[in-house]
């Protein structure tokens, strides 16, 4: 594979160390046991938020890490998904599943529409257009006061109970129940994302990232593949938005603002964008740092910024990316000739 020998970070590392079968099982077990380990409603909430943020960061990584498209407007899916969930469950029909499907579907349509324009551009122009689109949606949410509540946002978004009508139902008002519900949804979606990323389709995306011209010459429709990646990223982001909406019970246009997009990019880079679970790790770290530092001072962004500078200088593959690389280098034989590099 001469083509990938110039590739500094191979996605084959997905199969190594932390993301190995053992690693994933351990992670899942930790997630299932988390409410018993933390024993405090606040930390159960924090874990819930981390799960949602993980899904969001992994969805963005479909664009950044896999396809090589740096989007600066990913918050648009968080926001639109959140508003779709809120509008449907508050005004039309209070159903958790309907709300989540509305969140995902509305973002799929939005991503398709935005993608048609965006995927024809590359690099900075792509980033700028995604930013512009997200700011347009932000402005609409801000000024369309009758529907979105403007800057005051929307309040009292329900946590509808789940179950089969007439047979059984589970209330999600308790912090623990809600955590497990989110864990179920997020784990299922992340598994789906992993399947897609490791399918032949996912391989094509990585090829596009490495060398779009060559993929074009092979005869594959690069734009269409990019569009599909864009729609997958948007839809997953929309589900994260729907979950966030019901989790917080309150949303405001801040969710759509470009700084929110920046935060998602930050999570991705922090954890490692060339590792499948890296962004999820970054999301967890970012929220954990914010929570910890906020107890001492209000300038938590300085700490995150400082860590980011150190990372870019010393661990350019992100934190999880570094550990995975380390594990694959130190294992005898390595994989894919990874050890031959560096």
């Amino acid at each position, binding site marked *: 594979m001469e083509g990938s020998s110039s590739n500094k970070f191979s996605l084959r590392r997905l199969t190594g160390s932390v993301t190995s079968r053992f690693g994933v099982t351990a992670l899942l077990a930790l997630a299932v046991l988390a409410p018993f380990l933390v024993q405090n409603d606040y930390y159960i909430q924090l874990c819930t938020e981390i799960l949602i943020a993980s899904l969001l960061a992994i969805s963005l990584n479909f664009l950044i890490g896999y396809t090589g498209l740096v989007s600066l407007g990913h918050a648009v899916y968080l926001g639109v998904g959140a508003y779709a969930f809120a509008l449907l469950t508050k005004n039309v029909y209070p159903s958790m599943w309907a709300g989540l499907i509305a969140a995902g579907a509305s973002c799929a349509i939005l991503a398709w529409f935005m993608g048609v324009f965006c995927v024809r551009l590359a690099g900075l122009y792509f980033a700028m257009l995604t930013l512009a689109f997200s700011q347009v949606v932000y402005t609409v949410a801000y000024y369309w006061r009758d529907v979105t509540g403007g800057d*005051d946002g929307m309040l009292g978004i329900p946590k509808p109970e789940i179950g089969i009508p007439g047979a059984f139902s589970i209330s999600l008002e308790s912090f623990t129940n809600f955590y497990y519900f989110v864990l179920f949804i997020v784990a299922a979606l992340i598994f789906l994302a992993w399947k897609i990323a490791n399918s032949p389709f996912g391989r094509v995306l990585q090829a596009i990232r490495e060398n779009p011209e060559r993929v074009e010459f092979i005869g594959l429709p690069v734009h269409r593949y990019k569009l599909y990646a864009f729609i997958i990223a948007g839809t997953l982001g929309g589900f994260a938005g729907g979950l966030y909406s019901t989790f917080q019970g309150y949303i405001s246009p801040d969710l759509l603002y470009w700084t929110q997009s920046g935060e998602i990019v930050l999570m991705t880079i922090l954890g490692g964008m060339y590792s499948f679970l890296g962004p999820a790790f970054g999301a967890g770290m970012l929220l954990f740092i914010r929570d910890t530092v906020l107890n001492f001072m209000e300038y938590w962004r300085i700490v995150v910024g400082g860590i980011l500078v150190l990372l870019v200088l010393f661990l350019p593959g992100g934190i999880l990316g570094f550990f995975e690389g380390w594990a694959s280098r130190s294992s005898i034989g390595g994989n894919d000739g990874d050890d031959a590099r560096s």
Partner: protein
Amino acid sequence: MSAFRKKAFFAGAIILAIGLLSVSTSFAAKTIKIGVLSPLTGLYSIVGKRTSQGINMAVKEINDSGGVLGHKFEALIRDSETNPASSVRTARRLILRDKVFALLGPLHGGAAIAVLQESKKLKTMNFPWAATEEINTKFCSRYTWRVGSSAQQTSRAGAVIAHRLGLKKWATISSDFSYGRSVVRQFWNYLKERDPGAQRPYAAWPKLGENDYSAYINKMQKAKPDAIYVGLFGADLIKFMKQARSFGMYEKVKIFTDFGGNHVVLKALGDQAPFGHWASSRYLHNYPVSAANKRFVDNFRKAYNVYPDMTAGEAYSTVHVIAESIRRAGVVDKEKAIDAMGGVAFNSPEGWIIMRPSDHQGWQSSFWGVISKSKKYPFPVLSNIQVISPVEGSHPDENTGQGCRK
């Protein structure tokens, strides 16, 4: 290999740093923790520091006098970032993890309404700084109380003054969010009630945090009003006043500013303040000339070497009102303190504040005055102060507070 070691070292250092930060501190057993959401960063940071100072001073006074029922007060002051999402998150952390007795703040109207729903769900009393009147009406609950004036009281008092001066043709400008809308709605409806002939050819709703008001000022000038009512708050008000001055608005119309009498605003504007125009403040360091106010201002200056502003005064009073409710209840209990809250009276620096049981609003007078230069102070102050009684400035009892018993 050495490069690898370096990398490993840095990774280790980062993990160690995070570990050290997460070591939690322990608290003394007999404390009553007060969680405070204060806008330390963002658009309202201009008043965030004074809020914290007011809180700390009240806590110190209570503890120096032996605490309440043998318990010391402790304030956990956290940043609300003038942002609803982080306000809600921080509120949850204070209630669920730090187990605070009461939650104070935030200041942003939308954030306050979001937080009060959260505190209702988690059964903790909440005193928003925000003045939007929906807090006492639509969104009121057993757990929601407010010691500071509501927009209703201040803006209606402004309408009383406006009516007295016989100003007929108005333009209004206020930020497009809960509090901003509330301020102008209360002013305008009350003025219309008193003077049906009043007209308003132009109402501007810039977004919160707007930086350029020239388009609004242009339209305002075209409408040729006799007076303008400005409901902007925090840094927005300062930006607007400076721009209005450069357009010559100070000479052309009478200006009423709901928040403009606040000490930090007048100090920031300095020589560019709209002298001769009307402004209000929910607390004034130079009025009333009472023993309670003098003692508060003197102690505040001694402790922080600055004058207390509106938010400092309100924050100070709020902590004392909570202490008073616990004394009345006779036991340190969240629910019993709420039962005892209605009817609590506190001789605050701004005069007596009585917690009204029906709508959970602190009854107090409102102050409007004319912005003037002062010989005594090196910054503008309000003079010719008009005291509007709470009866004149508030709704009658039966119209409000339907939701507060929930």
